[in-house]
C-alpha cells in the first residue's frame, strides 16, 4: 500500500524506538524528584541571618538542646530562644563579635532576629513536641545529628507517610527519657538492646500514637 503512506512514514518505527527510552528516562527522573525526599526538600539548608553554629554549641561545647529550646517539654513548639538566651553567655563571651551584632541589637531593641524556618509543616497539621519528647522520641530521631551541622539542614521529609510509619510502629524510635537530647544514641550499643516496655523511668508506657485524622488535623 505504498500509495497510502508517504515514504517518510517508514521512519516512524525508528523514531518511536528512539523516543521510548528518552521518555522512559524522563519518567524515571520525574519520579526520582516528585516521589523522593528531594520534593520534600530534605537537605534544605538556608543561610541564617546570624551564623549560629549548632556544631559548635551543641557539639563542641555540648550545650543541652533544652538550654535554648526550653519549651520543648511543655509546649507544642520547641521555641527558638529569645536573644536574651544568647546574651546570657555572650554578654561575657565574644561580647564585641561582629557576627553577634544582630543578636545584641535584638536584645536591646526587642526587635526579632528573622530566622528562616527550616522545619515547616503545613498549617493544617498540628505537631506537638512535648508529647513526643515525653514519650521518648529523641531530638535526633527527626532532626538528625544537629551536633554535626554547621548550618541546620532539614533531615527528615516531614511527609504524612513519614509520620505515619512511626505512628504505626513507634518502638524502634523510642529511647530512655534520659537520652532524649543525646546525639548519636541511635548508633550506640545500648540502643540495640533497649527495651522501652520494661524501662522503669518512662513517664508512660501505654503509648497510643494517634493514627486517625484528628490526631494531627483539626
Amino acid at each position: 500500500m505504498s500509495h497510502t503512506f508517504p515514504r517518510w512514514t517508514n521512519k516512524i518505527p525508528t523514531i518511536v524506538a528512539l523516543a521510548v527510552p528518552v521518555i522512559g528516562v524522563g519518567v524515571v527522573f520525574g519520579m526520582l524528584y516528585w516521589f523522593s525526599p528531594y520534593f520534600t526538600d530534605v537537605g534544605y539548608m538556608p543561610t541564617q541571618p546570624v551564623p549560629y553554629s549548632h556544631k559548635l554549641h551543641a557539639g563542641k561545647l555540648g550545650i543541652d538542646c533544652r538550654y535554648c529550646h526550653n519549651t520543648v517539654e511543655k509546649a507544642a513548639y520547641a521555641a527558638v530562644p529569645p536573644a536574651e538566651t544568647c546574651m546570657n553567655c555572650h554578654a561575657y563571651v565574644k561580647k564585641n563579635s561582629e557576627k553577634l551584632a544582630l543578636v545584641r541589637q535584638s536584645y536591646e531593641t526587642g526587635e526579632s532576629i528573622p530566622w528562616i524556618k527550616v522545619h515547616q509543616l503545613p498549617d493544617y497539621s498540628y505537631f506537638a513536641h512535648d508529647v513526643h519528647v515525653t514519650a521518648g522520641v529523641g531530638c535526633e530521631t527527626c532532626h538528625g545529628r544537629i551536633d554535626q551541622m554547621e548550618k541546620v539542614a532539614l533531615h527528615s521529609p516531614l511527609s504524612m507517610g513519614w509520620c505515619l510509619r512511626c505512628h504505626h510502629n513507634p518502638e524502634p524510635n523510642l529511647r530512655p527519657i534520659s537520652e532524649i537530647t543525646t546525639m548519636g544514641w541511635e548508633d550506640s550499643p545500648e540502643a540495640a538492646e533497649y527495651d522501652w516496655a520494661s524501662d522503669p523511668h518512662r513517664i508512660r508506657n501505654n503509648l497510643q500514637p494517634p493514627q486517625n485524622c484528628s490526631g494531627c488535623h483539626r
Partner: protein
Amino acid sequence: MDMRSNVDLVDRRPALVDPHEDFQAITKRVAAPIEWKTPIGWWLFFIPSVLLAASYGGSVAYLVWEGTGIWGINNPVFWGWAIVNFVFWVGIGHAGTLISAVLFLFRQKWRTSINRFSEAMTLFAVACALSFPTIHVGRIWLLYWVAPVPNSMLAWPNFRSPLLWDVFAVSIYGSVSLLFWYVGLIPDLATMRDRVTSKLGKFAYGIFALGWRGSTRHWRHYEVAYMLLAGLATPLVLSVHSVVSFDFAVSQLPGWHTTIFPPYFVAGAIFSGFGMVLTLMLIARVIFKMENIVTMHHIDNMAKVVLLTGSIVGYAYAMEFFVAWYSGSQYELFAFINRATGPYAGAYWTMVTCNVVIPQILWFQKMRHNIVLLFIISIFVNIGMWFERYVIVITLTRDFLPSSWGYYSPTFWDVSCFLGSFGLFFTLFCLFVRFLPMIAMAEVKTVVPEADPHPEEAATGGAH
C-alpha cells in the same frame, strides 16, 4: 399445510434493507456523506454546536475560578444539575452498547443498520457524562486523589464509596464501548482508505485501518474479537447504570434509599438511550438519504423498545409508592407524597407524562410509523428522563428534620453548563457523521440478499 403458511409468514417479514441495494450501492450510499463536499446543512449544525461547546468551556473555567457557589446548590441540596446531567448523559449512553452488543449476541440482524450510529452516540454521551462529576467537585485540582496511586501521604481512596465505584464503572464502560466501536470500524475504515482520494484522508484512514486487507484471516480474527468484546460489553450495559444508581440507593435518604433503583435505572437508561437514538436517527436518515438502509422496520423495532422500557419505568414509579407505603416509614411515605404534591410536583408530573403516558401512543403501529410523531415522542422521552433525574435530586429539599428543609433553584451557570454539554455532544456528532461511515457497511452487507449464498432457496422459503 399450515406448516406452509408458517413459512409464508416468515417470508412475509419485511427485508432488513431495501432488497434492491447491492453491495456497491450500499458502499456508495454510506460513503457518500464523507465524499460529498461539506454540505451547508452540516455547517448549520456544526457551528452552533461548537459555539455551545465553547460556552461550556467558558462556564467550567469560571466555575473553577470562582467555586461551585456559582451554581444553585445549597444546604440541603448539595447536588444540583451537575449530577442530574451526569445521570442523564450516562443513561443516554446506554442504547449504543445495548444495540451493538446485546442485540448482536441475540443475533438481531436488524441492529446492523443502526449500531454504528448509536455506538457513536454512546461514546459522545459518556464523554459528556464524565465531564460533570469531574467539574462538580469543590477542589477539582485534587481530583486525582480518587485514583489509587501510591503517595507520600500513605492515603488511599475509600473503596466503600459509591462515587468511587462510579469512577471505575463509567470509565470502564466508556473505554470498552470505545474499543468495541473502533473494532467494528476497522473494515469500513479500510474501505474509506481505499476510496478517498486526498493524501491526508488516505493517511489518516490508513493509520486507523491497521492495514486491513479483508483477507479471510482478518475476517476470522475480526469476528472473534468482535464477539469477545460483545460478551465483555454486555454485562457492562447492566452494571454501569446499576452502579450509577448506587450513588443514590446506597445513601440512607428517604426517596433515595431503595432497592428498586438498579433495575429501574437500567430500564430508564435504555429508554432514554433509544429515545436519543431515535431523535438523531430520524434526522440523519433523512439528511443523508439512508431511508433504504435504515428502514421503517428498524424504526418500528426501536419504537417498540421505547414502549417496553417506558412501561417498565412507569411500573417502577408505581412500585416506588407502594414500597414507600409498605415500608411503614413515615419519612419514605412523606418523601413520595411530597414528590407528587410538594413544591416540585410540577417536575414530577412532567416526568410521568413524558415517560409513561405519552409513549403509550406507540401501542399503535400507525403511530410507530409516523416519523414526525415518533420524532416528537422521542423528544418528550429525552425531556422526561432528564426530569426523572431532577426529581430524584430535588428529593433532597425535604429529608428527615423539617428544620433543615430548603428549596433549590438553578442559576444561569447551571443552565449554561447543561446546554454547553449538548454543544459538546453535537460537535462530536457532527464530526462523526462527516468523517466516519455512520453505518456499518460491512455488517449491513451481510443482511442483504446478495450476501445469501442461496438466494433462490430464500425466495422459495426453503429451510436454511
